[in-house]
């Protein structure tokens, strides 16, 4: 089994980057994705990133930290990150784990996430 082969694709649509995480990420892959997304923001000048995690069955403290870290880092680069589609079981577990991810924007689905980013950009 070669996990290195799996690279998570980042799609650019208009001003936004869309990332859908569909594999159970090991730690290095998560960090690699973080770097990749930040580089894409820099390269494309995107103003917002939607990260869909609706198929993720588990988010532990490491992946949680990578996700919230990514939001803070992107914010410094003037891009907003919205985490989309978290499963209820994952949300309950994260709260019990002690990771409430304050300051991270979330949306129920892609459409609502997109709306959220649009509203934010219009205000700015």
């Amino acid at each position, binding site marked *: 089994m070669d996990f290195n082969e799996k690279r998570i694709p980042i799609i650019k649509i208009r001003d936004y980057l869309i990332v859908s995480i569909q594999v159970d990420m090991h730690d290095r892959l998560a960090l690699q994705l973080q770097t990749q997304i930040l580089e894409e923001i820099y390269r494309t000048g995107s103003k917002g990133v939607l990260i869909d995690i609706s198929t993720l069955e*588990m988010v532990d403290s490491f992946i949680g*930290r990578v996700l919230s870290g990514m939001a803070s880092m992107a914010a410094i680069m003037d891009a907003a990150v919205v985490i989309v589609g978290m499963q209820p079981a994952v949300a309950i*577990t994260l709260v019990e784990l002690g990771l409430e991810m304050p300051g991270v924007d979330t949306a129920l689905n892609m459409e609502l996430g997109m709306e959220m980013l649009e509203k934010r950009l219009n205000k700015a």
Partner: protein
Amino acid sequence: MLEIVSDKSWELLEKCPILNEYDIVKARQIVREFAKKEGMGIVDQTRITTAVSELFRNMFSYASGGEVLIEKGIIEEKPTLIITCIDKGPGIDNIELAMTDGYTSGGGMGYGLPGAKRLVDRFEISSELNKGTTVRVMKWK
């Protein structure tokens, strides 16, 4: 070495080595499969998978790996999944401190051990300096 021993009535389901990051992913997926098989609900499946993921990562980053035993047995009259993580790492100097929210010795967020404890029904830990650490978690249906 350490005093955590398996009960004779427990059934060993799987033994997984944790030697690299892929093993962490593989082992936590195996744990989820067994949790599913035991009939746990989706939230409990996620709780136990997340808890063991924290433990496996600790083994990997502090003790450069170890071994995981996945067993099942009856605890308090309930069918229970029992996961034991055994490493031969440096050991934990102050367990009480390691179990405190927000404390970390390795640059993490310090939610690993105390967080994992909140996600399971029973949590046992024993450690000896320079010999290793054993952590056992149990989750029942």
